[in-house]
């Protein structure tokens, strides 16, 4: 495991920070919060130009061929900038399953379109029960000639309205083991019978939707991976997505810590900066320590993925629970240290406060991941 960045990684980090400071100021974030799709085609095009959209895709498909640690560096900066839009949905949620399980034709058809920004993708797994798990996948896919007919409703689908294609997990067979019998279908959102409705969520920077599919016909050549074996395809993606969220949380936490410390230095009450009071100092020190430890675990998890280390799932679970706990603690303290201003809509803190909550529930909350760790100790 390597904990310091090499020269290229340092460059990527600097470049990402500059790019996002220019292209993704908070005025832009707030504009996207008001937008129905939460997606800016202009920003998307620029991200394609700098090679981010295909960052970890192989060069033969128009990607940049970089590794997972590189991606985590970028995700940190995106979390810091509170970047909205379907980046993770396209590259990770949909891109990775196509890369790992797609046929040569599918990879040639879709991966270059991800990398060059030509199409936006996402993934629909979760249903009414709200959990990302095999048993929750109840949507039916019925064979009709060479097509499958999809019928049912998905919930919490990220970026569905920005997406041109959605990978939909549906049940092609009932079986004792809920992880068997799930198939992944690549659905064109322009098809008749695909209906999306925005969900009114706390975190408005990352849009989620309810998606109703009414007798949507999908040709079998758009099945990703084997029929009935779709759940297995999602495992590797899920691991990487979880680790990417950890990086995003660390990046966001860093912005919140810096903003709070700066405020504590400037805000004067009782004739002195509030940062000279020990109660404030100690809150800031706790925020710093929480961020340090979250970062250690996040980097270890990202390195484990890069190295293909068999311990990666354990480290990712450890990182997810630690990062989510840290991000919540950091945003809690930040609002308290800021006082009244931190409770307003106009201050940007609440964007991070809310993202911390949204990231905790995504891909297993802290309690879920701690239980996985307990099982690993058995």
């Amino acid at each position: 495991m390597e904990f310091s960045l090499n020269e290229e990684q340092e460059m990527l980090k600097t470049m990402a920070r500059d790019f996002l400071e220019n292209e993704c100021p908070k005025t832009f974030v707030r504009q996207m919060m008001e937008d129905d799709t939460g997606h800016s085609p202009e920003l998307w095009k620029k991200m394609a130009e700098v090679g981010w959209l295909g960052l970890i895709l192989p060069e033969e498909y128009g990607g940049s061929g970089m590794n997972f640690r590189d991606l985590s560096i970028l995700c940190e900066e995106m979390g810091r900038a509170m970047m909205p839009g379907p980046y993770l949905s396209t590259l990770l949620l949909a891109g990775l399953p196509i890369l790992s399980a797609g046929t040569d034709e599918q990879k040639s058809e879709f991966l270059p379109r991800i990398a060059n920004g030509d199409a936006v993708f996402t993934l629909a797994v979760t249903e009414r029960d709200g959990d990302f798990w095999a048993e929750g996948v109840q949507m039916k896919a019925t064979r009709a000639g060479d097509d499958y007919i999809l019928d049912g409703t998905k919930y919490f689908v990220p970026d569905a309205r920005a997406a041109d294609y959605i990978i939909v997990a549906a049940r092609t067979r009932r079986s004792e083991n809920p992880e068997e019998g799930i198939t992944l279908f690549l659905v064109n959102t322009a098809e008749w019978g695909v209906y999306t409705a925005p969900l009114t969520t706390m975190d408005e920077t990352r849009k989620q939707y309810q998606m109703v599919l009414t007798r949507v016909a999908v040709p079998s050549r758009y099945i990703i991976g084997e029929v009935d074996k779709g759940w297995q395809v999602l495992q590797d993606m899920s691991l990487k997505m979880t680790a990417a969220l950890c990086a995003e949380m660390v990046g966001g936490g860093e912005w919140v810590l810096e903003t709070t410390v700066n405020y504590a230095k400037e805000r004067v009450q009782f004739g002195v900066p509030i940062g000279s009071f020990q109660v404030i100092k100690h809150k800031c020190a706790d925020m710093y320590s929480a961020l340090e430890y979250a970062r250690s675990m996040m980097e270890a998890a990202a390195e484990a993925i890069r190295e293909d280390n068999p311990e990666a799932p354990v480290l990712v679970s450890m990182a997810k629970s630690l990062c989510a706990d840290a991000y919540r603690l950091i945003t809690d303290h930040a609002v308290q240290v800021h006082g009244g201003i931190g409770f307003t809509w106009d201050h940007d803190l609440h964007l991070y406060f809310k993202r911390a909550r949204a990231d905790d529930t995504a891909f297993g909350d802290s309690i879920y991941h701690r239980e996985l760790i307990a099982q690993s100790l058995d």
Partner: protein
Amino acid sequence: MVSEESERLAAFRQEVRDWLRANLPEGWGTPEYQPPERLTEEAQALGEEWTKKLYDAGYTGFGYPKEYGGIVRPREEIAIIREEMMRCGTPAGPMSQGLLMVAPTILAHGQEWQKKRFIPKILNGEESWCQGFSEPDAGSDLANVRTTAVRDGDEWVVNGQKVWTSNWKFADYGLLVVKTDPDAPRHRNLSYFIFDCNAPGFTRRPLRQMTGEAEFGEMFFDNMRIPHENLVGEFNRGWYVALTSLAAERSGGAGMAFVGAGTAVGTRRTLWGVETIVELAKNTRRRGKVVWDDPVFRQRIAQFAIEAECLRYSAMRAAARRRKGAEAGNDMSVGKNFSAEMRQRRGDMVLEMLGAYSQMVRGSTLAVDDGTWVYQMLRSRGATIEMGTSEINRNIIAERILGLPR
């Protein structure tokens, strides 16, 4: 190339293993082996003897130049030595502040003769050290030292009292921060000395803690004389020398974790005794139910395992930063606080698992694991006080790392 190197290291690992097997005390690692009682002369003698053996074999004394008795070896070999020692759980060294804080301080600030005279005998375990910083009126406010040293020719005459001295009993030498200028401003009125524990005018006595044992002691100086050549660092700048000692102590206090990458060895299961706690939870029933099946305890034990693992990676990150030239200093406060608070959480958690039996201490046949858990829980209360209270360390993080106003 790679395979030649890995073959060489595999052979070296075998060599270390064989040496350990041949040199560990008779019966070591078997249930019959009775280690000497903590803080006794027997424990001290075993520690000295063991360190001497290790040193003669070239298995300790790393990180110091050869001319001061340091043992120089490739990093991979050092990692193997530490892993193999960790694997069989070797005896502890002598009770001494020597390795932890004295040698790093002398190396950084000492005169040449001091480095040559004292560091080798710290590394080989021959001489034990204690430290005299805290006083009854100088705890967290350490700069408020009252013990004085007045110059008399080539000597200094010391009067006063020190408290919370680790290894007070067996120390051959001590470090001392004393006031050498009654009129100079704070932080510029202290000097740092080495003193001989056999000097006339020096007395020591035990200080009993809530655990019942006297791990710490008090030291009294009644016209004790120190030669002028024992001054460490500049005259009246002892405060700054002491800061080095304190940072070194804190880094060691972060549970070995911050000494350097590769030293925090052990697997996910064995780090910080996680495996032992899981076993205990599996073998303990509360109201008829196995503790390990209780979701609340599962969450807490998992959280503890996560923190232990996290501390290890933070140590590796700190080591990576130092390799890039960053100074080891204020970030030690982060690790020290985290590990001290972890020790308390561990103690509390295990005692809650044990229920009524958490009351039974050493000496009772009903005590679980001979009262070790209760002892650890009580001892951990000192962890957030010694080496800078958690509050002082939070101030250090806030002021020196984050730059908040004093």
